[in-house]
């Protein structure tokens, strides 16, 4: 296994810049998720790392060896595509065995490794079957088995679950961490599903329009997004953005939300001072989880009206309106509220972000 490093990789298709100066280091043995909406360049980056595509500029390193000029087979990569790639004329066993034909020294070793991969993916019962005798979900398991059976420098999975239905996806997703521990290699896993990434990754890289937005652990990305896009893309239900302006009163920071001034933590003061007085036209970001509702007035709360209530089973997604501001809040289903009611929203101040909507940068 290897440490993978992309250095200032740019890829231009005719006029379209699919990747723009992407640099990222993936430590060896890491489970790295590349996350981004479709069309953001994830597949292109994977194809460049695997050698199926050459970058317009920039380089790829495996353990400090420049592999940019090497072909996929010289790089020794294992890769799973969005669609199962099974050789139709061979049965499943032979399909998996073919992938390690160059690696094994004996039939015995081949059998052991195929068995090992098959049991890891729980497809032992299908080994003797042909391509057309098994369904799509199993086929994708076979593709994954074909990849992890290898002793490769890096294992790449390009949205391997996106064509499966929800149930299959969830069951396979939960197995992925186990698979990673057993295989013990560098995994790069591509997805557009942030829940999937948050659930399985050691580290996540977020790509948007060919630019890498942020790299970090799931917690870092969730709690400390670097920009508005990351804050928006991660987390479900989606984060609220509320127009706001800030001011300092008696050396204490306040944010204007709806029609109330809300006192902020001391830590905001420093950040605000660095803005040199530009305190208007900002946005306050807060996740629905971090807002609670009180039916009686409490200190430091924002009086609002309940606009509508959406039931999510054990919780309610409530839209609150306060003056010009509207935001959603997630609260317990046992809470006794009705649409049109006057309530009081309490923001968890630890988790408030202030965003400059012009640069989309998260100030704090």
């Amino acid at each position, binding site marked *: 296994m290897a440490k993978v490093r992309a250095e200032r990789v740019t890829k231009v298709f005719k006029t379209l810049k699919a990747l723009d100066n992407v640099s990222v280091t993936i430590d060896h043995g890491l489970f790295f998720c590349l996350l981004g909406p479709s069309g953001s360049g994830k597949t292109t980056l994977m194809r460049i790392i695997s050698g199926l595509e050459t970058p317009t500029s920039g380089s790829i390193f495996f353990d400090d060896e420049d592999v940019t000029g090497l072909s*996929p*087979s010289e790089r020794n990569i294992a890769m799973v*595509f969005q669609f199962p*790639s099974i*050789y*139709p*004329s061979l049965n499943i066993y032979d399909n998996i065995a*073919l*992938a390690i034909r160059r690696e094994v020294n004996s039939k015995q070793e081949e059998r052991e490794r195929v068995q090992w991969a098959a049991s890891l993916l729980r497809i032992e019962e299908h080994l003797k079957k042909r391509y057309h005798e098994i369904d799509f979900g199993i086929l994708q398991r076979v593709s994954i088995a074909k990849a992890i059976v290898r002793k490769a420098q890096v294992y790449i999975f390009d949205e391997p679950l996106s064509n499966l239905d929800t149930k299959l996806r969830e069951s396979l997703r939960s197995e992925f961490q186990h698979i990673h521990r057993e295989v013990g290699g560098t995994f790069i896993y591509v997805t557009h599903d942030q829940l999937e990434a948050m659930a399985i990754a050691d580290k996540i890289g977020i790509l948007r329009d060919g630019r890498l937005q942020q790299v970090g652990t799931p917690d870092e990305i969730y709690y400390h997004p670097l920009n508005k896009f990351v804050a928006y893309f991660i987390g479900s239900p989606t984060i609220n953005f509320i127009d706001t302006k800030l001011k300092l009163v008696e050396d204490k920071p306040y944010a204007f939300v709806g029609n109330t001034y809300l006192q902020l933590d001391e830590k905001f003061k420093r950040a605000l001072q660095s803005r040199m007085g530009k305190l208007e036209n900002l946005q306050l970001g807060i996740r629905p989880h971090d807002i609670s509702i009180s039916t009686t007035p409490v200190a430091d709360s924002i009086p609002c009206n309940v606009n509508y209530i959406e039931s999510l089973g054990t919780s309610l997604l409530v839209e609150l309106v306060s003056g010009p501001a509207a935001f959603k809040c997630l609260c317990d289903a046992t809470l006794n509220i009705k649409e049109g009611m006057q309530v009081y929203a309490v923001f968890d101040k630890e988790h408030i972000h202030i965003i400059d909507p012009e640069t989309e940068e998260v100030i704090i």
Partner: protein
Amino acid sequence: MTSQPDTGSRILKIFPIILIFPAVALVVFLVIFPLIWALGLSFYSYNVLRGEPPIFVGVENYYRLLNSLDVWRRFVLTGQFVFYSVSIEFLLGFGLAHLFYNQFRGRRLAITLVTTPLLVAPVAVGIFHRYLFDATFGIYSYIAQLLTGQSVRILSQHPMFAIVFMDVWQWSPFMMLFILAGLEAIPKHMLESSEIDRLSPLAKFRYIVWPTIKPLVALALLFRTMDAFRTFDTIFTLTGGGPGTATEVLSIQIYRTAFQFFRTGEATALAFIFLVIILLLTNIYLRLARRE
């Protein structure tokens, strides 16, 4: 009053029959009727020129034909022609298809040029090959002379080579188009995944390329074999079956029997034997293709 909807529905039932009647009639009178008539005729001794009434001879025509060494020789000759032509066409078409599978500048124009022989009328193909093979002025004869150092009269010395060459010239592009279509149907991600799996070029061909192109190759071979088997016009215009009977394939023999020797009954019998062979070939191919 009550019969009104009844009449309406009866007209509705008859209407489609009226519509397809002309087509069916055409097929019956122009195809099926002559076929049956000819089948009947093959059991008679009959000569159109003499105009005498046909004499019923039973299976005599068939018996005589199947026991004639001459006819067997024609079978072998035709078989050789088909085998050489179709094999070379397959190999050439295969090579060309792989060439055109790559992208290069002027690829479309090159494909158009390579496939033009398909559009040339067979008689024209035969006639201009006669010029190309001409012992005195022909460019092919000239090339042959350059290569061998002596003057070669291809049409009289190597007539089989000439007719196979001509067939290959015209029909290799046909094979190429089929195989190219097969190659282009190979999913790109399969080729890429075989690259990732580090398969050898041979394994790539065996496990990805061949399974995808196989049905198309089978179809192309079927078409070409049947077609080559009944080739008439190109050979007839190039060599007329000669020299002697060196290139007299079955179709030309049938023609000669019918229209030069006017042994009409015998010719029809031969034509039916011919038909049965083609049907058998088709069936074998289809069965092979379906088993896959």
